[in-house]
C-alpha cells in the first residue's frame, strides 16, 4: 500500500445505535496509508462506533464511508471478492477480549482469521507459530481463552487480529484494564508495527499513551461530532479543547499550603501549572 494513499473517507456520517441513541453525528474524516491516528473522546462519545464503522460492521444511516474509493456498505461486502480484500486489509481488536475470543483454544483463535480467508494450512500454521513466539505466549497455545488473565486475553486478541496480517489495524481501547508493564509492551508493539508499514488507528481516552502511538488525533465530543482533528502534540497542548470534551477536568486542591486549580489529565503531577498561585 503506497504512502499517502487515501484508505478511508468518512463523509458526513450519522450513526445511531438501534436507530434512536445517537453515536456519531456529521462525521467527516480521512485516513491515509501508514498514518498513526488516535481517536480521543470521553466515554460514550462514539469512539467504538467509529471503529466498528471503519471495520464495516455497522453502517451510517446518513452519509457514507469509502474504502479505497469504494463505498463501504452491506451490499458491497456481500461481494466475496471485496469482502475478502477488505477483511484481509483491515483488522479490529475489540475492546472486550471475551467477545473477540470465541474459539476453543488459543491456537484455534489465532488460526480463525487465516482459515476464513482461505490461507493454506502450512501458511496458517506458520503464522500461528510466529505470532505465538512474537507475543511470547507459546505456553498458552492449547489453553481455552476463558481461562486466561486479562493481559493474556488481550495478547491473544491482538494475535488473532494480526494473524490476518492486516495493513490497517484498528484498536478499541487497547490499554484498558492492562497493568503498566503490559501497557508499555503494547505501546512498543504498536510502534514496531507502524515502522513495519501498518496504518494504526487507536480509540482511547488514555492520554498518557496518545503521543507515543499517534501522529494525528481526532477528538470526538460528547455531542458525537468531531470536535477537532490535528497533530497529536497540538491537540494535547490545547487544554481548553480537552476540557470542553471532558477528557480532563479542572481540579481544585491544596498542597504545600497553596490552594490552586489545575487540569487533571495527561501530565504527571509534577509538571502541572499553578494558575491560581497564592490563593489561600
Amino acid at each position, binding site marked *: 500500500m503506497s504512502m499517502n494513499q487515501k484508505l478511508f473517507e468518512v463523509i458526513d456520517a450519522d450513526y445511531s445505535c438501534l436507530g434512536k441513541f445517537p453515536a456519531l453525528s456529521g462525521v467527516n474524516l480521512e485516513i491515509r496509508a501508514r498514518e498513526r491516528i488516535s481517536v480521543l473522546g470521553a466515554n460514550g462519545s462514539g469512539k467504538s462506533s467509529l471503529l466498528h464503522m471503519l471495520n464495516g460492521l455497522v453502517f451510517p444511516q446518513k452519509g457514507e464511508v469509502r474504502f479505497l474509493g469504494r463505498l463501504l456498505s452491506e451490499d458491497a461486502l456481500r461481494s466475496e471478492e471485496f469482502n475478502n480484500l477488505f477483511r*484481509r486489509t483491515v483488522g*479490529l481488536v475489540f475492546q472486550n477480549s*471475551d*467477545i473477540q475470543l*470465541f*474459539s*476453543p483454544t488459543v491456537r484455534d483463535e489465532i488460526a*480463525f482469521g487465516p482459515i*476464513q480467508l482461505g490461507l493454506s494450512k502450512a501458511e496458517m500454521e506458520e503464522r500461528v507459530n510466529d505470532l505465538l513466539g512474537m507475543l511470547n505466549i507459546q505456553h498458552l497455545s492449547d489453553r481455552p481463552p476463558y481461562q486466561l488473565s486479562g493481559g493474556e486475553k488481550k495478547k491473544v486478541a491482538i494475535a488473532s487480529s494480526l494473524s490476518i496480517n492486516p495493513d490497517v489495524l484498528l484498536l478499541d481501547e487497547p490499554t484498558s484494564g492492562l497493568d503498566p508493564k503490559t501497557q508499555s509492551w503494547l505501546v512498543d508493539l504498536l510502534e514496531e508495527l507502524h515502522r513495519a508499514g501498518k496504518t494504526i488507528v487507536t480509540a482511547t481516552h488514555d492520554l498518557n499513551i496518545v503521543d507515543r502511538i499517534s501522529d494525528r488525533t481526532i477528538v470526538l465530543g460528547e455531542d458525537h461530532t468531531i470536535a477537532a482533528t490535528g497533530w497529536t502534540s497540538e491537540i494535547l497542548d490545547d487544554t481548553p479543547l480537552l476540557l470542553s470534551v471532558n477528557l480532563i477536568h479542572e481540579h481544585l486542591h491544596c498542597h504545600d499550603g497553596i490552594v490552586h486549580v489545575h487540569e487533571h489529565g495527561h501530565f504527571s503531577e509534577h509538571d502541572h501549572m499553578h494558575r491560581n498561585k497564592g490563593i489561600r
Partner: protein
Amino acid sequence: MRPRWLVTKDVEIHVPDYKKKSARKGFLDKTIGEVASLVKNSVFLEEYANRDGILQSIDPRVKVLSIALLLICVSLLKHPLLIIGLYLVILGLAMLSKIPPKFFLQRVWLFIPIFSGIIAIPALFNVFVPGEPVLILVKFQGKWSIGPIKIPEVISITKQGSMAAFVFVMRVATSVSLVVLLVLTTRWSYLLKALRVFCVPQIFTFIISMTYRYIHLLLRLIEDIHLAKKSRVIRKGSIREGQRWVSTQMGTMMKRSLKMSEDVYSAMVSRGFTNEVRVVDSFKIGRVDYLWSIFFVLFISLVMGLNRIWG
C-alpha cells in the same frame, strides 16, 4: 455538587453484639453455587484429559471410532461373561488412563440404578419373563388377568428374568462406562473436532463449541451479579423476593446474551467469517494410533468370535 448526606457521617459506627449462629445458605446461594461448580467441575476442568495416560495419547478420531465400535459390540454381546469381561477391560483402560477407579465407578454407577435399574426390575418377575422360579413371592388361587396381561397363579422371580435384567444392566453400565471414559480422557474441543469422522456437519460442532465457550462466560457473569447483589443487600429477603429477583435476572441474562451473540458475530465477521464454517484440525495419526488400532481390531475380533461360539 455532592449531597450533604453523602459526605457527612455523624453517626458513630456501633458494632452490635452478635451470637454465633449456624449460617444457613439461602436457596439462591445454594442453587447458583452448585450449578456453577457442577458445570465447571464436570465440563470445564479437563483434569483427566490432560494426564498422560494411554487413552489420552491416542488420536481423538481413532478413539471416537474405537469407542463407537465397542458400543455396537456391547449391544451385540449375548453372553453375560463376555459383557463382564469387556467391562473389566474398560476398568483396566480407565486405570491405565490414570483415572481414579473410585471416581470412575461413582460416575457410572450413581446413575445406573436410577435409569436402567427401574426399567430392569419388571423383567425379574415371571409375569413378564416366564421361566424357572428362583424365589416365590405370592401364590394366588386361580388364574386371573388385568387387561391383556395374564397373571399366573404364582408370582416369582425367575432365573431367566434375573439373567435378562443382569445382562441389561451390565450392558448399560458398560456402554455408559465407555462414553464416560471417552469424555474424561478427551479434551472437549478435540472431541467435537473428532466427531467429523462421522460426517457431523461442521456448523453443528462449531456452534456447540461456541455454546460451550460462552456458557462459561455467562456462568461467571451470573455468579458476579449474584455476588454484587449480595454485597449490597442489608436485610435478609424472603424466598418470594428471591424468586422475583431470579425471574427478572433471567430476563436480563437473556437480553445480555442476545447482545453478546450479536457482538461475537461481528467479531467473527471482522476476521473474515462469511457464514460458512471453515475449521482446520491439526490431528496427526502416529505410531501409538497404529499400534492401538491393531490391538483393537484383534480384540474386537476375539470378543465377537467368542460371542458367536458361546452364543
